[in-house]
Each structure stands twice: as C-alpha cells, then as structure tokens.
C-alpha cells in the first residue's frame, strides 16, 4: 500500500520516542496486520543509517544581505564597482574583492556561485525563503534548513541538540511543522553558555531536587496526571542529561588551546566559528553562525569593509581547521545572505536591496573547490546564462548532505510538504 509507506516515511519521531498518536492516526489497522515493517525494525534501520552518515553542515548566515560587489563578484572596471578593487586568489583566473585577502588564499576549497537569483527583496520574506524554501504562509509553518537537517541526519539519542544557532536569529524561524524537538538551541553569543544551562544550584543539590520532584509528582500522576507526569519526567531527564553531560563542556571555547583561539580571532563571529567546529566535532549536525548587519543603504564601502574584516580571518580559519582535522569532506560550509545589493550606488554612498543577481559560496561536503559557477554581466545588473534560484541552492545543499529533497513531511492539517519543492541540483558544484 503505497499510501501507507508514504505516511510511514513522514511520521514524526520525537526524541527517539515513537509518538503514538501520529502512528495510530496514520496507519490503518489493516495495513498493520498485513505485515508492514514494525516500528522497532524501522527505527533501528534508520538509526544505523543516520549514524553511518556522519555528515554535518555549517551555515554562515550573512544577515542583512552582503554586497556581492564588495565580496565575491567585484566589478573594478565598471562604474558600478565603485571604489572596490579586485585581488587575485590562490586559484589563477579567479579574483574576488580586496576586502577578503585570507579568504582569497583559501579559494582552492571554495565554489563561488555568482548567479544567485530571487524575487524577494524584503528582509523578513527573503530570509524566510532562503532558510525554508517557501514564502511565509498562515497555513503552514515551514521548517528552517537547520531543523530539516537535524531531523534527517541528527542522532536522536545524542546528549547534545542536533541544531545549534549562534547569534542573531531574526526571521530565520524554527522547526515549524517538524515539532519542537528540532528547534535550534539558540545561543546569543559563543562566549557564554546557552541560556539556562548553568545550574541554579550546585550539582549535588540539583540532583537532590530532581529526586524530590519525582517523589512529589506521584500523587498527581495517580489523579489524572499520569500522561502529563510521564512526559514531563522524560523531558526533565533529557534536560538534566544535557546540563550535566561532560559534553556541555564542548560549548566552552575557553578550553581551546591559545593557538586555535588566535587562528579564529577574538571577534564574536570568530568565536562563533570556533564553537561551530567544536560542536560539529562532538556530533552536532547543523550549526548556524550569523554575522551582520550587512544592510548598507548608507556608507556601503566603509561598513562593508569593516564587516569583511570580521568575516575574513574566521572564515578562512574555519576552512583550514576543518581541513586539518579531516572534517572538510563531511562538513558542508555554506556562506550566504538573503539577497544582494544594487549595482547602482545611491546618494548616501550606499547600495540598496537587489535579489536579481547575487553571490553565495559553498565549501566542503563533497563540493569541488577552486571554481566559479555562473556570472553576472559587466555591470553586475543581470545574471548571464542560467540563474541559480533559492530552491536550486537548497536542493544542492540536500544533495551534498545526502538528504532526499522530495521527501514529504506533514503539516498540522495533513498537507504533505516536500523538503524542497522544485529546483534542481547544480551538479557542477560537485563534479
């Protein structure tokens, strides 16, 4: 019964526990009797596959839309290029903006896509679109990329969450229809522990309190609250496991050797990238680190230069670090923002929003580095040749991570939602 199999593959599994109501709602009794794979069989098959995969993703989110002219698609010979010069990179024939010298040296690992194209030029909608592949809708809460990857590749039995977000998380949204288990653990800054993970009392007292709590709940459990208490105890056990886990130490970047800290620099973004590497190393599947605000309607050249100074060293250091640890092959590193900036320089020396042609960069995860895909015309006004749309980019990311983009999840009213709707893998990225 193809319908049954379809439903089976999209039923949610929360934190390693089978969610009984989903299962019973989806599978007709006849199908269950007909010998369809039992749930424990299915779970063990999936778990083995997941652990084998070992793939991970770091999304470097450039919030506010970085100017492609001042980063990866400079136009020094044209009026639109403004004062920004181009520099050679470690790959002959490829030049990027002078603002990113360290990144230029790492070009051998990078695949620059200059033909990104979208119709959305408003920050909230475009950010949402880039992260989910859909425009915001009242009817469906589309899941963000990190939640999708956490669900597909994450290890449900892990102490640490599969999806961590470091920095500003405006408009990038959460797990939506996938459920709270795939929401990110949000850290406003890499230098401090995640919110509410520092124990309010010393550990022995904390343990004692947990014991008292369990005793206190028995009465309520016997008077109608059995399910509530049982679910509650489970989540408390998981939360306690998280905060008491030696793996929480992984969130503490002060434990890194000085050489590593120096390589990434002491900026917030640098610390975020260092933490991302630490977390991926421990088994976290998806880390999003944001840097902003790139929305340079005024004073574009100075402000972008300053932001690039914050970007340059950590981005290069992250790539080198992953490479040196043998992690680059299995870790996809995505650099992108919600759109680009106008070729025309406005009266305030700024550039405004421009989704028609902009840049994104991929590295690691099987990506063939040292290449440029797509191009813009001489003035940077339009994409030449075939554009890469938002869903093309997301399909390409799925391909790198081994995720089936056509797989469907169910919205709350039973509407099947593909992970990515349409789009094509940009195969040149990998060949």
């Amino acid at each position, binding site marked *: 019964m193809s319908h049954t199999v379809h439903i089976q593959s999209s039923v949610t599994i929360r934190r390693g526990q089978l969610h009984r109501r989903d299962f019973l709602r989806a599978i007709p009794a006849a199908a269950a009797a007909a010998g369809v794979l039992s749930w424990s069989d299915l779970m063990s098959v999936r778990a083995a596959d997941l652990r084998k995969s070992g793939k991970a993703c770091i999304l470097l989110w450039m919030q506010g839309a970085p100017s492609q002219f001042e980063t990866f698609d400079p136009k020094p010979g044209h009026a639109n290029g403004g004062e920004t010069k181009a520099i050679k990179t470690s790959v002959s024939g490829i030049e990027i903006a002078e603002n990113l010298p360290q990144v230029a040296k790492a070009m051998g690992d990078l695949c620059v896509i200059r033909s990104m194209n979208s119709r959305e030029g408003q920050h909230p909608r475009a950010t949402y679109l880039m992260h989910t592949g859909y425009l915001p809708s009242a009817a469906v809460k589309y899941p963000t990329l990190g939640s999708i990857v956490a669900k597909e590749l994450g290890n449900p039995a892990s102490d640490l969450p599969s999806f961590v977000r470091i920095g500003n998380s405006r408009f990038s949204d959460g797990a939506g229809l996938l459920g709270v288990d795939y929401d990110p653990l949000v850290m406003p800054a890499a230098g401090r522990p995640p919110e509410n993970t520092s124990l309010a009392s010393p550990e022995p007292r904390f343990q004692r309190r947990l014991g008292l709590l369990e005793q206190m709940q028995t009465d309520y459990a016997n008077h*109608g609250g059995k399910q509530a208490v049982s679910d509650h105890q489970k989540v408390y056990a998981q939360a306690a496991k998280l905060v008491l886990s030696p793996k929480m130490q992984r969130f503490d970047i002060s434990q890194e050797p000085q050489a590593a800290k120096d390589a990434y620099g002491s900026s917030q973004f640098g610390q975020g990238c260092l933490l991302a590497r630490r977390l991926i190393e421990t088994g976290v599947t998806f880390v999003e680190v944001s840097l902003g605000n790139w929305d340079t309607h005024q004073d574009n050249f100075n402000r972008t230069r300053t932001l690039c100074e914050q970007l340059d060293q950590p981005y290069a250091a992250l790539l080198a670090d992953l490479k040196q640890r043998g992690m680059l092959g299995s870790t996809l590193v995505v650099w992108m923002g919600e759109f680009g900036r106008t070729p025309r320089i406005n009266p305030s020396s700024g550039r405004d929003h421009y989704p028609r042609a902009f840049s994104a960069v991929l590295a690691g995860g099987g990506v063939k580095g040292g290449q440029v895909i797509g191009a813009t015309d001489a003035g940077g006004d339009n994409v030449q040749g075939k554009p890469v749309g938002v869903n093309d980019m997301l399909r390409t990311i799925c391909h790198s991570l081994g995720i089936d983009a056509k797989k469907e999840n169910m919205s709350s009213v039973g509407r099947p939602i593909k992970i990515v709707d349409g789009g094509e893998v940009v195969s040149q990225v990998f060949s």
Partner: protein
Amino acid sequence: MSFPCRYWQFLFASAVGVVLTAFSAAAADSPAQAAAKADKILRSEVPYANPAKVAPTRIDDERFLRRASLDTLGRLPTPEEVTAFALDPSGDKRTKLVDKLLANSQFGENWGRYWRDVIMYRKTEERAGIVMGALESYLTASFNANKPWSDIATDFITASGDATENGACALIMAQQGQPEETVAEVSRIFLGVQIQCAQCHDHPTDRWKREQFHELAAFFPRVASQLRPQTQTFSVVVNDEPRAFGGRGPMNQRRQGTPEHFMSDPKNPQSQGKLMQPVFFATGEKVPLGTRDSERRGSLAKWTTKKDNPYFAKAFVNRMWSELTGEGFYEPIDDIGPDRSCTAPHTLDYLAGQFADSGYDIKWLFRTIMAGELYQLPSSAPRGSEDPHMQHNVVQRLRADQLFDNLLVALEASEPPPLGGPGGPGGLYGRGRGPRQQFTTAFGYDPSERRDEIAHSIPQALTMMNSPIIAQALRGNGRTMLARLIGEIKDDKALTQELYLRVLGREPSSSELETATRYVKTVGVRTEAFEDLLWGLVNSAEFLHRT
C-alpha cells in the same frame, strides 16, 4: 371613528413587532436548560463506556474552583478564594461562581490573549508585533463587554484604519494585507474551513475547487496594509479607485489594493490570470464586479454571521467545547469542513443553533458548557485513537501567559517592564526582551494546534530549572515571599500547606505532606529544604497544566 384606521394598524403592528423581538431575543434556552438538553443528546450519541454505563462522579468543589478559575481567568484561585468557596453553603454555588468569574475583567484579558495568539501565530508579517497591544486591547474590551461573536467577526472582516489604534485591523495586517492569506485566515478562524489548500489546485481530498478559493479572495482585493515609516505604524487602507494596477513595489511587496482579484494561470504565470467575481462558498451569495470595498466586505461579514451559515456558529462552539472539555466535536478544532468526521453531530447542531439564537452570546456559551456534565467530570490524559469519545475532561497545558501570571502570583513577584517599552528596542522588528517575552518564546504555542501535540521541550525544562530570574524569586532569604513565610510560619506542616496553596491552588495530600516533612528532616537546614520544595512545586507537571 375619529382616529384613522391606519394609525391603529400601525400601533398593532408595532406591538406585535415588539413582542416578536422579545421572543427572538429570548429564543435560546437558559444555560442550565441548554446544558441539560445537550447532556441528554450527547449521551444518546456517545454513551458512557464504563461497565455500569453511568456517569462517573463529578469533581469536588475544590477541583471545580481551580478548573473554572484557570479556564475563565487563566489563573489559580487565591487562598482566600479557595476558603470562601469551600465555606459557601448554597446549592447553586457552582453556577454563582461561574457568573462571578465571567464578570471579572481578567476573563477578557485571558481570552483576549488566547485569540491574540490564534491570530498572531499564523502571521506572515514579521512586524506584526507592533500591533499586538492594540489587538489585545480590542479583544479584552470586547470579551469583557460580552460583545456578540458576530460583531467581533464583522469588526475583523471589515476593519480599516491605523492598526496600532484599531485592534481589529490586526488580522489583515498580520497577513500583510494579502487577499489570499487574509481570506484563508478568515475562513479558518471564523468558519473552521481550511480552504487555503485550494489556493493553487483543487483541494486534493475536500470538495473545494480552486475557483471557490479565489472567489473568496475577490472580496478583499481593494485592501492593503501600508507602513507609515514616519509614525512607525501600519494602516489597513482601502483603494476604490479604478486603477489597473495596484502595484507591487520593486521588492515584491504589496503596496496598494487593486479593483478586482485575478486567479493566476499556472500554465502562464506571467499573465494577469482570470478575473474573479466575489462569491461566498458557504452560502452561495455573491456581489457583482465593480462593487465598492465597503459593500464587498460588509456583505461577506453579513453572510458569514447569518444564522443559516452552516459553519459560523459551529466553528465557535466546537472550539470553546474543545478548550473547556479537552476534546472537540471536530479535531483539529479549526477544521470542521463538510468532508470531516464529527463526534456527536446532533449535540453540536443543538448547541450551535442555541448559540446563534442567543445572538452569539459568548458568556452564554461559557455558562452552558460549564454547567454541563462533561465539563465537571474528572480529567484524564487525551484519548488514544482507539478510545471512546468524550468520556471525561482532559488535562491540558496552560498557555505561556497563564503560566507566567501564575508564576508571578505564586512567587509574589512583580512583572518588570520589557526593555525599551512595549514596542521594544529595534523599532519595527524589535520586541521587548523582558521576562514575559522570554517566557513566551519558550512556552508559547499556537492555540489552534492539537493540544496533545504540544510537546514539552528541553528549553522549557531548562527555563524552569535554571532561569536566574526564577531562582532569585525562589530564595528563602532576602525580600522574597518564601523568606517572609519562613519567618512567619514556624510549623513545617503549615508552611508546606501554605506553599501548595499558593503554587498549585490546593492543599497537599497526606502522602505529599509526609514527603515534605521527611525531606526537611533529611536536609536539616529549614531554609534550604523549603527552597527545594518551592522549586519542586514550580517545576512540577501539575503547575504547567489545568487539570
């Protein structure tokens, strides 16, 4: 005769008119009668499944007080209220209690927040936070004044003006003034019909055709939601001018309304599409092309709220029944279309008919459901898919606002103002990052989602366990409630009872008292032990639920 015949005819007609009006206003049964009738119909459709086939014993007064307070006011009863209700000897004390609770202004605040969440959790406009205050004020005032639900629906459907002043604009503004998204929400919220699946193609399982969705959208094309950067406000504006293009801005944002709505052609997306006449799928009524906006939306509001609209009354009754008893006639609660299956349809029909006859009187509905048997039965976990329907009330998670308020009251903490005032820092996009907002981020959920799918999460557990603000308020030293009580009440048992009363609204059982007493002895330090006990109480599953 000296008086003209017509004058007597006029008098007679007026007298009959007055009498008839009086009859139709009183056409709904009293809450007590309606509750009794509904009980009878319900049990004929869904009999009790226990071996004796009888109703289980209703909950005692103490439990009823707790449940009713949480359901109406969103908070636990105070220790004084608990004592007063326990001592009240009157036979109809539960009815009197419900009347008292519904007259309390916190009723409007609590249910205002509920509907605020219903609307706001589905927003596609990220800056909708800016109108939340106005929305909440409008809803609170409406519920406290017992404004008919038909008037409230009309306000939302026909709203225009400054959204930071007219809270009823929020539904349109939250959907960026887009006709398709707006009517999808109007249909979901007021009719319980999920017609938006037919936006792009004929509905895969239901009977709705693509045309019907876009005929509904055709009531709203002249409406837009405009940002006024100078005043940092949003306005819902109407454009009745016959311009060909409403105009999308260069960034694809909708700037102005258009005279008519077009259904896009999937085979030719660049073309304008098919011109749609406004037709209301629920009643089949329509207005011609070229109709002014006020008549379009005014007609839609009229047809939505009229008595023979098959969905309007049912949608509200279904939702309230589900909120109060834990199980809807239809589930999910905002999905009651003709292709859905209904538990106890005659009961719903009866109550919906009565609700309409009452003039869509919201407090009447509360009184009726809360006087019914099912509301007063003991609660248990949500039913499994093989279990019989509507056998008991259901343990339900409280909303973030309710939890936060209960926490404040239990710990005698006052609410610190959000940073930067109600709009928060960061202008349009920023929201106050005060404790209430942080709490809502962790504990908030969309009230229309299936309640048994609101999973307890790790960030929630971490908040209650480790939040520095809560930890501070739990201390047994300094100027906290606990410090004061430890000083005032020297007897451990009495102190334990006081804490249970404050946090859970009830006295501890004898085994709970024993657990506490044993614990205090083990720890040895009184202050420390009671800090732990109070921590246990606010971290309990019971605290998070309305039982």
